[in-house]
């Protein structure tokens, strides 16, 4: 009896497969390797191979595969690139960070790679089931990573909090999937879209709309949009800094990745008719809430946690119009945010004290005279995060705000710009510390710890600084890259 095998296009998920294999290699090698840092380098090799494969796939996009569960299109490939870069840079800053705190275990790298796979699946998913699978693969790995610093109470708290609230969010999301399936009879994004466009009356279908709202809740949790942000400051603050860097960039990008695909493919009209204004309001309260809370912070790590909420708000501005220009703007923003934010966290890892969680702002006083180059790097990241040209962060904002203006929602851009001005206050507060205040001395009672820069951190800083500056002056290559991002 012949058996019909479904057509499986493994080529389409080659980058994901490579990362999975790398993760297994890391777990296996863990048994034999004494210096666990080697596992980090193995992970980097795996990620590099995945990136190369990813680039080669950009030449030709595959149609939906695995029975329309997944797709390898311009959109998912650009996102893969973001996830791979985020993972690689995070591993680079992990190497010395973990050794310094005696946390060097092989599982760390394996979990980080698994989380990356989850993110990549979320970007490539064309079916709500796969979205959920990717979400869980990513989340569970991140729960453990957040709690990785077992000795610190804060880290355990971070993991627990993230897990409990994350589980709730997943439940909301899953219930939303169920309702959408009940209303439309499918979990396939394309088919849901066809159901909505088949009949104008379907746009107002209450079950489908409640389902959509629950999906939005799930995504809002992952991207840390107000009012679903409560976990963010504690988790970002308590988790090991290298993990925070990865979460703040990767998990956010993954959330936006599926959010935009779901909204654009499945809910196109239903979104613009019923939900556009709600998401616009969500964007404004997210950026405002994040910024105002960040103003009050005395701890740099916590401040960046709140500021990442604000950035979710700016990025949402690009989601609201529901146009391809908006989508590409969001991808540009996420790409730029990956570099400047991980760069900033890399600086934090250098200044963070071994014995405590977080990084007091006083420790940055006089950094410009202690280490001019480190201070200069931090200055560039802070200025770029504020959105001041000629740095890469400016173009991200310009790109998403343009989409809002095109959609006749200039007020959103105005809100975004006002918030940028507010954010200048706390970002430049660090610049003030570094450049304008003297180094704390023993007489002040508290001497900042000696600076220790390891080679991988230097590499991270060099890469992120170069990207922040060069593509700030000449953003054309990144603009061209993100313009490849189309839905297959």
């Amino acid at each position, binding site marked *: 009896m012949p058996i019909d095998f479904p057509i499986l296009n493994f080529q389409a998920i080659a980058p994901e497969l490579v990362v999975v294999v790398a993760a297994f290699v890391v777990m296996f090698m863990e048994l034999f390797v004494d210096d666990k840092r080697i596992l980090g380098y193995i992970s980097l090799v795996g990620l590099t191979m995945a990136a190369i494969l990813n680039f080669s796939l950009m030449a030709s996009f595959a149609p939906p595969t695995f029975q329309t569960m997944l797709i390898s299109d311009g959109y998912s490939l650009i996102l893969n690139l973001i996830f791979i870069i985020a993972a690689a840079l995070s591993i680079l800053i992990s190497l010395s960070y973990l050794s310094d705190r005696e946390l060097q275990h092989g599982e760390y790298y394996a979990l980080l790679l698994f989380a990356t796979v989850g993110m990549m699946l979320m970007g490539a998913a064309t079916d709500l089931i796969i979205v959920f699978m990717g979400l869980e693969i990513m989340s569970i790995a991140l729960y453990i990573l957040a709690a990785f610093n077992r000795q610190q109470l804060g880290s355990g708290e971070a993991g627990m909090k993230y897990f409990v609230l994350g589980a709730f969010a997943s439940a909301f999301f899953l219930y939303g999937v169920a309702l959408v399936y009940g209303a439309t009879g499918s979990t396939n994004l394309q088919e849901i879209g066809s159901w909505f466009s088949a009949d104008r009356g379907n746009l107002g279908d209450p079950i489908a709309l409640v389902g959509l709202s629950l999906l939005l809740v799930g995504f809002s949790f992952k991207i840390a949009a107000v009012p679903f942000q409560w976990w963010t400051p504690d988790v970002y603050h308590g988790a090991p800094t290298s993990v925070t860097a990865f979460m703040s960039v990767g998990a956010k990008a993954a959330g936006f990745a599926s959010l935009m695909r779901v909204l654009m493919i499945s809910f196109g009209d239903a979104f613009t008719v019923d939900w556009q204004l709600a998401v616009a309001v969500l964007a404004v309260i997210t950026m405002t809430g994040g910024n105002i809370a960040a103003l009050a912070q005395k701890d740099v790590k916590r401040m960046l946690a709140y500021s990442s909420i604000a950035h979710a708000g700016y990025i949402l501005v690009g989601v609201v119009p529901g146009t391809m220009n908006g989508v590409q703007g969001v991808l540009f923003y996420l790409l730029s945010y990956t570099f400047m934010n991980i760069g900033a966290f890399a600086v934090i890892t250098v200044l963070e004290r071994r014995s405590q969680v977080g990084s007091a702002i006083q420790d940055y006083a006089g950094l410009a005279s202690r280490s001019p180059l480190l201070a200069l790097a931090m200055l560039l990241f802070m200025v770029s995060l504020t959105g001041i040209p000629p740095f890469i962060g400016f173009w991200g904002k310009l790109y998403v705000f343009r989409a809002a203006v095109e959609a006749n929602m200039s007020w959103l851009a105005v809100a975004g710009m006002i918030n940028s001005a507010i954010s200048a206050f706390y970002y430049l507060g660090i610049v003030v510390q570094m450049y*304008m205040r003297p180094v704390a001395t023993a007489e002040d009672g508290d001497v900042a710890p000696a600076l220790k820069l390891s080679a991988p951190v230097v590499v991270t800083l060099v890469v992120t600084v170069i990207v922040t500056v060069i593509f700030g002056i000449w953003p054309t290559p990144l603009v061209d890259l993100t313009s490849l991002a189309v839905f297959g």
Partner: protein
Amino acid sequence: MILSLLIIIPIAGAIVIAFVPRDQDNMIKWLAVATTALALLVSLPLYFGFADGVSGYQFEEIRPWIPALNINYHVGIDGLSLFLVLLTTFLTLISVISSWTAITDGLKEYMACMLLLEAAVIGVFISLDLFLFYLFWEASLIPMALLIGKWGGSRRIYAAVKFIIYTMAGSTLMLVAALVLYVNGGTSDLPTLVSTLSLSQNLQIILFFAFALAFSVKVPLFPLHTWLPTAHVEAPTAGSIMLAGVLLKMGTYSYLRFAIPLFPDAVAYWTPLLVTLAIIGILYGALVALVQDDVKKLVAYSSVAHMGFIVLGTFSGGQQGMSGAVLQMINHGLSTGMLFFMVGVLYEQRHTRLFSEYGGIWVKVPVFGTYFLLAVFSSVGLPGLNGFVGEFVILLGTFKVNPIAAALGTFGIVLAAWYLLTATRKVMMGPFNEANRNLKDMNMREAGIAFVLILFCFIIGLFPNLLFDKINPATAELAEMISATTLIAGQ
């Protein structure tokens, strides 16, 4: 290519300085001087190669920048920007030389900031693309804020943060307005937008406001001026020279370059408000300057008053007023720059700027006294010096359109003479204050700077047509744009 070089040279200089070892102070200084001198030399052909009597842009360059978004690198100058570019290259060199002995700590960063600031300011004056302009506009913030905040006085951090927050808050709406223009016109190219875009008057009024707010903070127009005195008082001498000399001009220049040609229909709507604020600024700045006990603060408030004149000429004087405004931007850069420099010479020796600490020092420092008096004369508008021509032409133009405004402005000139001459009396004349017995007169370097500055004041005062011949075609075109729309509105 000259214009691009003017941006590239200072940046390259800053990068080179970044690689010089920290203890090589002299090498850093000479590199900075060489860079700024080279920029000045490169900028001179702009004057000699500039075609008189022609409107439109010269030395233009267009290169694709972000083709996918239709954003180009487009630079060029006309009569409005020519002299501001020259003023910038000139004053940066002066600033670098003037900080020869004043800066000891972090010299490397200081000079790098100076050079980056020069590049950003020149970029503002030559950009003909909205986003390119915005890029340089914002980029000028960081080096200036660092100059104030790192090398400034005791309240330097407060002053630096205030400077940044004011300027950033002011320019938030400008980027959105630029995006609206870009989305409506499909391009961010200024000449193309000016010639092709036709927006409704209401939209023009809103967008004009968005742009003018950013410019007015920079000028600064009353009541947005409060950042200026703090910034000036705290900034190091060279920072003040750059701030008053060229940074404030970014605001007044941008009215003429962007706000008026892009939104000619909105000018009539906003003119009454802007003129009123300018007049208040002239009188208020002068009155506040009268009661200062700190020389530098006095000069700072006199800046508020003088910049008010420039805004007055821009909006109420027709073509004549605009030409006068452009000239007065240069004048103010030279004379106020010189005043700040003179105050800096005193401060470097005595570390105080209070009137009560000085008095009767002319006998001790005659060279200084002479130059100080000349700078004051230039600032109050004594005939034969530059300030006279600028203010006279502005008031002449304003009188034809708005006699009351002209009368009030004239009163401001009287006040200027009052407070500046009072300042001279308090510092230079009267009984000798013994605290100054060790005061040294200007050395060759300082006297040289003062001489060059005052030389240009005389040249402009005696031969203003050297400038007007190049300025007038550009302002004539602007005046035509406005009057064309008022005629249509009047029908």
